């Protein structure tokens, strides 16, 4: 087909032009978050060779559904839902060419290149962003349940730490109430233990009613204090130091059972300092949510014109707005807690009038960026089930550019040595092989850019290695030509025979290498996949250059010197 020198040169020229075209710096549009927090497109000019996370710097996360706290009814559906939500969030986050994809049946892989704040990105990926609005409990359900909870704990053998505290506000405030509440609260629909337990509970409650000083060993009563008169109903303060302990205690099933139905306990998102001691607020809330984030259509971060603190304004859809309006209309004068992922945000505000479709969340003491992140995750929607990170790989940008620099140095030194060896051994023919090697490097990079492959650190090492191996085909051919010359063949015939006889060995050895590379590609992860791709591209390019290109060079050489009787090889 390509018998004439002219057609061969044309093909080589076409390959060179194509490679240069694919490697030519071009404009790439990047979606970025500008300084004002608004997404915008920026145009950058650069070589269109994609660098892997290990060269560019970036983060790779593998996520799975975390069913330790919440069991998924349909994991497959929930994962697909989570995937959509993550896509939206990452899109808004503004990363160049992000990758969000499902791997296998139970995993989502997120790859973010060149991010500067990995902790923030992780937060955005992992935050469930489940928004709820609940009315605080106004019947004092927790105070009433506290003595029973303490007795349960005592029954379980859990004693309070010796806390030299004055009679807690809870008892001061509500001492006698517990006995009145007892008949109403204690006969819980608990058929198995009803008889004995109710009797015991009532008896114990009577004791508590007589004694307003702390119940001996009353763990929770000592730690949980009502906010006091004039405070938000259903709000209790717990010393920040005791927060983890109280949290684990109230979550014990036996203790949680003491709370009346329809009431749940939720913590505030952050500690507040009251006086000298930081405290964490615990809220008793009506379980039924007025409305959830599922009804949200828009969210935006802003600075509150009054306080200059960050707020997130939101807009509900029509149905959500109607329900929100109805419920808030019913609860004018009550307090409404705004919960994000089960934590109360800020202190619950009082409902002053019926609220429609628009509302706002005040974030005390947070940065505008955090408000922006919250708005972003709220808008993208909540994750159906929390996600846990099962794999994290993160490379700093400086380490990445360091790797590129080292790889290029190694490549240059390696190439120089290979060129030297080829010139010393094969002289003028070696020079032709070196020319072919230069084309080899160009073709390999061009092909990588064409198939949109990702260049990784092992891939870079693969290219350096393949420079050493790429000359093998030429070596095979040259050795063969030398043998033919030794057998007394003419230059022309020796070259023909040399190429012909070397072909078998070249094809067989390259096919077996491609086979191993294919398996590497199939089973490897990111960086190793990159290595396999460079290996495969390198082999194809070396077949083209060593066989086709060098052959053409020889043809030109012979054409110019038809009377050639000795070959510089």
């Amino acid at each position, binding site marked *: 087909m390509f018998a004439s020198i002219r057609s061969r040169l044309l093909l080589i020229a076409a390959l060179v032009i194509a490679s240069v075209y694919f490697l030519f710096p071009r404009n790439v549009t990047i979606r970025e978050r500008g300084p004002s927090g608004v997404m915008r497109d920026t145009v950058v000019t650069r070589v269109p060779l994609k660098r892997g996370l*290990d060269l560019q710097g970036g983060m790779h996360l*593998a996520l799975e559904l975390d069913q*330790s706290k919440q069991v998924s009814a349909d994991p497959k559906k929930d994962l697909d839902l989570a995937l959509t939500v993550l896509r939206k969030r990452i899109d808004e986050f503004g990363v160049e060419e992000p990758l969000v994809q499902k791997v296998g049946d139970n995993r989502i892989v997120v790859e973010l290149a060149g991010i500067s704040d990995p902790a923030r990105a992780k937060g955005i990926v992992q935050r469930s962003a489940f928004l709820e609005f609940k009315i605080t409990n106004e019947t004092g359900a927790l105070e009433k349940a506290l003595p029973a909870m303490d007795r349960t704990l005592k029954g379980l053998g859990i004693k309070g730490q010796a806390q030299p505290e004055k009679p807690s506000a809870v008892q001061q405030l509500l001492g006698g109430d517990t006995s009145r509440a007892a008949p109403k609260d204690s006969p819980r629909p608990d058929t198995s233990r009803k008889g004995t337990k109710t009797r015991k509970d009532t008896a114990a409650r009577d004791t508590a009613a007589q004694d307003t000083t702390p119940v001996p060993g009353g763990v929770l009563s000592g730690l949980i204090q009502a906010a006091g008169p004039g405070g938000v109903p259903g709000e209790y303060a717990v010393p920040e130091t005791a927060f983890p302990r109280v949290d684990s205690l109230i979550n014990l099933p036996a203790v949680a059972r003491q709370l009346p139905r329809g009431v749940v306990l939720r913590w505030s998102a952050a500690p507040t300092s009251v006086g000298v001691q930081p405290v964490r607020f615990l809220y008793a809330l009506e379980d039924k949510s007025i409305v959830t984030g599922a009804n949200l259509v828009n969210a935006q971060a802003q600075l509150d014109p009054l306080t200059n603190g960050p707020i997130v304004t939101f807009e509900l859809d029509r149905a959500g707005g109607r329900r929100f309006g109805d419920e808030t209309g019913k609860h004018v004068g009550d307090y409404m807690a705004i919960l994000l992922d089960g934590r109360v945000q800020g202190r619950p505000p009082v409902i002053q009038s019926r609220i429609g479709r628009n509302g706002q969340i005040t974030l005390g003491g947070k940065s505008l960026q955090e408000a922006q992140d919250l708005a972003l995750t709220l808008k993208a929607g909540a994750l159906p089930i929390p996600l*846990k*990170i*099962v*794999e*994290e*790989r*993160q*490379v*700093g940008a400086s*380490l990445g550019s360091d*790797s590129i620099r*080292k*790889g290029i*140095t*190694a*490549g240059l*030194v*390696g190439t120089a*040595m*290979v060129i030297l*060896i*080829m010139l010393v*051994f094969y*002289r003028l023919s070696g020079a032709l092989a070196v020319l072919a090697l230069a084309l080899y490097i160009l073709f390999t990079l061009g092909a990588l850019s064409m198939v949109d492959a990702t260049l990784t*650190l*092992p891939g870079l*090492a693969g290219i*350096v*290695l393949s*420079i*050493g*191996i790429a000359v*093998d085909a030429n*070596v*095979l051919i040259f*050795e063969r030509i*030398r*043998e033919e010359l030794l057998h007394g063949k003419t230059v022309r015939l020796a070259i023909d025979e040399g190429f012909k*006889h070397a072909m*078998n*060995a070249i094809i*067989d*050895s*390259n*096919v*077996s*290498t491609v*086979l*191993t*590379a294919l*398996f*590497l590609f199939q*089973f*490897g992860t990111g*960086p*190793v996949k990159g290595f396999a791709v460079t*290996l495969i591209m390198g082999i194809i390019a070396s077949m083209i250059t060593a066989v086709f290109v060098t052959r053409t060079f020889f043809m030109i050489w012979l054409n110019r010197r038809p009377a050639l009787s000795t070959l510089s090889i």
Partner: protein
Amino acid sequence: MLRLFGHANYDFIGVRRYAYIITAAILLPGLLFLLITGLNYSIEFTGGTLLQIQSKKAVDVASLRTGLDREGVPGAEIQNFGSQNEYVIRARLAKPGTDANDTQATANAVRHALDRVLGAGNYTVARTEAVGPKVGGELRQKAFLAIFLSFFAVLAYLAYRFEWRFGLAAVIATAHDILATIAFIGIMRLEVSLTVVAAVLSMVGYSLNDTIIIFDRVRENLHKHKQERFAQILNRSINETLPRSVLTHGTTMASLIALTIFGGEVIRPFALVMLFGVFTGTFSSIYIASPVLMAIEQRWPGPAARGHLAPKKAPAAPPSRKPQTVG
């Protein structure tokens, strides 16, 4: 012209018994050593947490270790990495009481310990890897599968292009290379990472390359020199391909030495494994693949080994090679 080993005529096959002894002398102690010490798997395969940090000041390794113990991450490995204030911290065990497959708790504990000991802002994290044991197990499985399957694919290809005797000999030589390389990795205490697995597979490809070049010559010489004995043909083929071997190994080693010296800390294990692979690949092509081919040929002689187009020598030879391919 400059030609190394241009007219070589060494009796490679004749000294094969010495080669076997050398092989055994290298492989047996190497594998014994491996059995005792085991391989040093990377975080990717075992699961665990790795942080590579660059500190602004000198790092007191002992106090860092105490700090890690206090955060509930005992038994962490702290290793100097390249330059003076660059360290790699590996915590293979998850922080007790946390879900090991949720890699974040342990990674955060390590960061807390660093904040406490070095001071936040006094160091930068250049690289983080946190892999749950489940993911690690999957990766390990995939790596073994890749090596195993590529093995069979190559065997099938060689059986198709040559015949099963050549394929079997090549695969036995490759198995030798893999064992020798694993022993090398163990003795050098190199960390078995995905990159090193990639190096082992490339080494397999490279060594196969070498074997195939020789076998290709064997096939050709079987046609050309029908009178010669098989051992002579093997010797002739190895000697004829010797100049090519020397030169190609030379250029490959030049690239690999450049990678070892200039390529940086992360890529060095890859380059070292490949460098070793060049030696063992060359050795096995000459001293394992060829003698094994001869042994197979003696055990299961067949007309096919004399080349597809070779005329049948004697009527006694089996008319078909099907029964042998089954065996």
